């Protein structure tokens, strides 16, 4: 390592003397371009935050009677924030076990050729536009879910999630969550797969040498090694599910209520879907209230990402 650094330093000195002690224009251009790009990203983020805050202020200071539905801003946004988090959590709960299983199959179970093509197909899922997922959800998955919803309500209605009555169209939070799960599956499984396949060979072989079965080897060496990757992948997926709009708008029968019941015709509305639904016909303060809800969504996404980083940095220390 040190020898290498020495060589590069020497090479740099030689180069520097050859160009008369000055950095080459290529270096300067690259340096400046990189700095500008870095600053631009920060400026962009700050710009979005400033826009959201500035345009939210009229809604924050407005009289309750002038706001949508005559509710306070908190009463207006809270059910929407609940819907956002519920939809994303349902998606992650369904997607993560599936994604881990897919990643393990690709990295440790499937024969190499099958693994490669399967990995390609899973990645392809990420390339499908969300509106196509939405159309598939409303035309295919929704109707197909109707008998399943009936079954869930008939057998499991003691669980609050399946309290019913079952929707007759299948356009429920559970259906929307399933579609969101499919949408985030590629991200979660790609991150997990990448790290699973980097599990040190000695750990795996050690476990096998001690008489572990393949499943025990995966449980004892691969899963602990990939734990932080699974968590960070899940958080990335959660971030996408929080902001997903079009698929939810099309699939979900949104009512804006607060309920954990995932199988009925009345469902909570996520913030992003609510903005898409209400913005086109809104004017004046209603728009400010929608932007304020956008600011809350921005905040939720920020917090999720920060928590993800916290978890990852902690597990790295271990």
């Amino acid at each position, binding site marked *: 390592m040190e020898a290498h650094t020495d060589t590069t330093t020497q090479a740099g000195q030689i180069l520097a003397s050859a160009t008369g002690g000055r950095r080459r224009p290529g270096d300067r251009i690259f340096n400046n371009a990189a700095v500008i790009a870095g600053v631009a990203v920060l400026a962009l983020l700050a710009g979005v935050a400033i826009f959201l805050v500035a345009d939210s202020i009229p809604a924050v200071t407005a009289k309750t009677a002038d706001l949508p539905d005559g509710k306070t801003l908190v009463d207006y946004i809270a059910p929407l924030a609940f819907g956002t988090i519920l939809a994303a959590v349902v998606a992650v709960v369904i997607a993560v076990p599936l994604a881990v299983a897919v990643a393990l199959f690709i990295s440790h179970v499937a024969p190499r050729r099958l693994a490669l093509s399967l990995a390609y197909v899973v990645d392809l899922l990420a390339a499908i536009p969300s509106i196509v997922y939405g159309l598939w959800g*409303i035309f295919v998955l929704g109707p197909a879910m109707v008998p399943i919803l009936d079954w869930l309500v008939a057998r499991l209605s003691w669980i609050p999630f399946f309290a019913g009555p079952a929707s007759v*169209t299948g356009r429920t939070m559970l259906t929307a969550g399933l579609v969101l799960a499919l949408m985030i599956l590629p991200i979660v499984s790609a991150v997990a797969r990448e790290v699973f396949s980097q599990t040190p060979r000695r750990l795996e072989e050690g476990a096998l040498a001690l008489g572990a079965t393949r499943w025990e080897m995966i449980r004892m060496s691969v899963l602990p090694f990939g734990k932080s990757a699974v968590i960070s992948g899940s958080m990335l997926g959660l971030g996408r599910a929080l902001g997903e*709009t079009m698929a939810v708008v099309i699939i979900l029968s*949104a009512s804006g209520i607060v309920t954990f019941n995932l199988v009925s015709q009345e469902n909570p509305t996520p913030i992003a879907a609510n903005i898409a639904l209400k913005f086109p016909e*809104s004017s004046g303060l209603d728009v400010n209230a929608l932007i304020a809800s956008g600011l809350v969504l921005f905040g939720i996404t920020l917090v999720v990402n920060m928590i993800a980083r916290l978890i990852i940095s902690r597990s790295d220390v271990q």
Partner: protein
Amino acid sequence: MNRKWWLVSAASAVLALTAAACGSSNDNSSSGVSGTLAGAGSSAQQAAQEAWTAKFEGQNSGATISYDAIGSGGGRDQFIAGGKTAFAGSDAPFDSEELPKAQQRCSGEGGELVEIPNYISPLAIVYNLPGVDNLQLAPETTAKIFKGEITTWDDPAIKADNPGANLPSTKITPVHRSDESGTTFNFTDYLHEAAPSVWTFDADGNWPLKTGESGAQTSGLIQAVKAGEGTIGYADESQAGDLGVAKVKVGSTYVAPSAEGASHDFDISKKDPALSPGKYVFAYKVERTSTDPQDYPILLVSWLMGCTKYSDSNNTDLVKAYFNYIISSDGQQAAAQNAGSAPIGPTIKNEDQTAVDAIGG
């Protein structure tokens, strides 16, 4: 949403292009009017506006009209703000807060506010109930169904409206729009006016209840009604497709939606004097409680807003010619073909004409 943004950007691109081409097209005034005119507003009018702009531009080779379907509220806002938006389309007339500002915009350009009804569309109560083809509904029954007070199709109230019909005990799933819309506004206005004892909510573009199934935009609502058995919803009659369409009780008979019924109903509607100041502002309150079987009371009405004079005289000429074409029988027929709307009736047309004649005069 995506589609909306696409439209906005496409429309602004068109605007930019035509603004650049404007100078050259001005001297080509041999065939009618020329130049560019921009409007914005109601998405309910979009299909009709597309037909109007296409035909109008065909007749006036130098003219370019752009209509940006950003929504009624946005259209009214842009009109008030002035700028490039010379006219607006809206599913509701200016309200008492907006009116003075709109009048101010026009007086700032040396003219008066013009607000004329130009688009009528019958709304149908659509349902999906196999085996029941000829559903009839009184306003109170409809209101109770959508309020969730009637929950099965064999309810005595529905039976009373449909003597002799074989109604199943299927659960009723009422479907409403999840987005804010002029369709919802007009449907809730009907429920509010025709069944005030049951529907105690005011007319509202946002569905006032948290119960029932919902679908995004007309296509989402229709899909939801198709997807489940026992569903019922409301949409433009032209979008009903092969779904069942209910007859609505008017007086002592049941009336199916039709263009004639909607036109006739609006033709006997009365003006809202508080919202109709000046000579050319015609804010009507749609008649929902007619007892004449010629009338079909569930309809959406949309308005055109403009000024009698603009500081840019080219705008004045274009608005006059374009509005004139829209309310002409040619224009109304083009909209009926393209958007499935109903033509405005003779009384409304004559009144609209006085306002259009005053433009530039």
